[in-house]
């Protein structure tokens, strides 16, 4: 079923009903490192493999790029919007800088910021979601009303608002994007946790006198690995989209530093002259987001067991309602 992973636009709350049913915590998976086995199974599906390859390719360009860059990304070495040539395979940009060198240097910070923003969003969102679901009552009310309020700001607008007030600082971009993820993550994790809290093994731990913090950490968290992995992939994709978008709007590293998002905006006036100055960074961003999202979708499918073996489907046939 397709609607599994990213059935929701960035920043939107998860759709209820059918999608929620699909996102239900998966059947248990065995192994000492269930997350590794899920990632591994996902990488071995055709889609997951393709997604992972795409994403890793871009990561390679971004990480190894600065080391192999033929020119300085900020020096004016050629003509404005020069056509590609032997010395400058992707031509020149709007100031006459080498596009290839700028492409090779313009990715690593985007990646780093996206990963950091994702980490902030997942940690904050998961902590809020688990606490809201397990502690219920007043903490739940307070957390979820806060979530409602933050969700009323579109993600990009939330980031823009913060940036407009405090100035376009990089750490602020990371923090703003991370925090804007948190409410959506909190909603997903809360509903997954609610489901787990209903499981009897949580009650068993309570009857054994386990403290709430330990119950959340030892009994609930390990069962949230699959939804957390899916959320992390999803939020990473959205982080890249938003941070690149902010850079495109001019809220990124200050010039003349190279940045894929900024490059697209500053070179689009020369699309007729040297389209590669736009196409190269655009393709890299596209490959990265499509790659991460496709791999996330594969993870979600494996975790939910969509590609369940038909054998199990047949066995479910004869299980009466008492076999829940």
């Amino acid at each position, binding site marked *: *079923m*397709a*609607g*599994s992973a*990213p*059935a*929701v*636009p*960035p*920043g*939107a*709350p998860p*759709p*209820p*009903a*059918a*999608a929620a*049913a*699909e996102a239900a915590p998966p059947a248990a998976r065995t192994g000492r490192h269930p997350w590794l086995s899920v990632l591994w199974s996902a990488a071995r599906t055709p*889609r997951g493999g393709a997604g992972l390859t795409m994403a890793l390719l871009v990561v390679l360009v971004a990480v190894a790029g600065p080391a192999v860059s033929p020119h300085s990304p900020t020096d004016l070495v050629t003509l404005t919007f020069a056509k590609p040539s032997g010395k400058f395979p992707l031509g020149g940009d709007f100031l006459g800088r080498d596009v290839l060198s700028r492409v090779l240097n313009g990715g690593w910070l985007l990646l780093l910021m996206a990963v950091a923003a994702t980490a902030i969003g997942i940690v904050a969102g998961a902590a809020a979601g688990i606490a809201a679901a397990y502690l219920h009552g007043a903490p739940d009310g307070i957390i979820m*009303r806060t979530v*409602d*309020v933050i969700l*009323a*700001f*579109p*993600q*990009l*607008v939330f980031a*823009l*608002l913060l*940036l*407009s*007030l*405090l100035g376009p600082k990089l750490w602020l971009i990371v923090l703003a994007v991370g925090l804007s993820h948190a409410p959506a993550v909190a909603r997903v994790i809360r509903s997954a946790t609610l489901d787990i809290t209903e499981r009897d093994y949580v009650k068993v731990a309570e009857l054994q006198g386990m403290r709430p913090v330990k119950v959340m950490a030892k009994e609930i968290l390990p069962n949230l690995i699959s939804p957390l992995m899916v959320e992390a992939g999803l939020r990473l*994709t959205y982080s*890249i*989209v938003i941070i*690149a*978008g902010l850079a*495109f*709007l*001019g*809220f990124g590293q200050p010039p003349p530093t190279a940045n894929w998002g900024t490059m*697209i905006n500053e070179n*689009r006036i020369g*699309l*007729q002259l040297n*389209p590669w100055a*736009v*196409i190269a960074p*655009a393709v890299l*961003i*596209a490959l990265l*987001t*499509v790659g*991460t*999202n*496709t791999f996330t*979708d594969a993870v979600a499918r494996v975790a939910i067991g969509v590609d369940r073996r038909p054998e199990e489907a047949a066995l479910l046939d004869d299980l009466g309602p008492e076999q829940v």
Partner: protein
Amino acid sequence: MATATAPAEPAAPARNEHPLLLLTTRRLGIGVLTLFVVAAIVFLATEVLPGNAAYAVLGRNANPARLHAMERQLHLNQGLLAQFWTWLSGLLTGKLGTSLANGQPVWGLVEPRLINSAALVIVTGVIGTVIGVTLGAVAALRKDGWFDHISSVAALTVTSLPEFIVAIGLIILFSTVVLHLLPAVSLLPPGVYPWSQPELLILPVATLVIVIVPYIFRMMRAAMIEALESDYVEMARLKGVPEWRIVLGHALPNSIAPTIQVIGLNFLYLAGGVVLVEYVFNYPGIGQGLVFAVDNRDIPVIQFIVVVLAAFYVCVNIGSDVIALLATPRRRIPR
């Protein structure tokens, strides 16, 4: 269970409160409260700035005289509560103050942009919904066929593309590098509305449609498949109901409610999505207005646009919830 004859169990007496009314009023109440908190946050955010707003706006150009004038303009010389009240009542009565960037009234600046953005969002929403629902239903009916596979992979790919990349791609394809069919920018002179120059809408609408269709498609497909694999559809097959009737009469009514909520979410997404797309195409809507205002630190304009977007969010949320409820008898009618 009394006797074998007669309805075995008496149905529970209907509650006095009608669930629909109850939910709507509850949602409205929470919505108004959310909006109030949003307004308070937007307002307070300008207050917790390092230094104060006037200083932040003026930056290096600050001198005591200009600071003082700016403080008066932003009502910073009043108490915090009084300031909030002045601003909130202005918001409700349409007295929104003047732009810091060019001294014009905020409402006069934002109103035409609101209309332009509304046109963009509505046209996109309608076209996207029709395409998404149709493709989703077809893919579900042909589950695991070639159309389903191709459209699912395409949907997955497109979902993850940033909207400005889609926009740039369309510009490369249709306006600059490959073909020269459509305008690359959608500049509208003041006083001219998009419906008088519909060709300007084509690329912005196409971009947003491409971005939202996959979500609606995937939800419709998933909901339809869930319905088609349900016990009640199996039961309908086993009582000899023709296939077309199963799809239209049994599966469709049950897949509409979840899809409506996703359509609502996509309208919400559009509220944020217009920012980048309007900026790319130079389309004079509130998204572009917001980017300009943020560039200029035009605080009254930022505040107003953010509150308008939040209000839109709250209204769409309530609307889609109510419609989804109407489409679900199980939730609409108490036991």
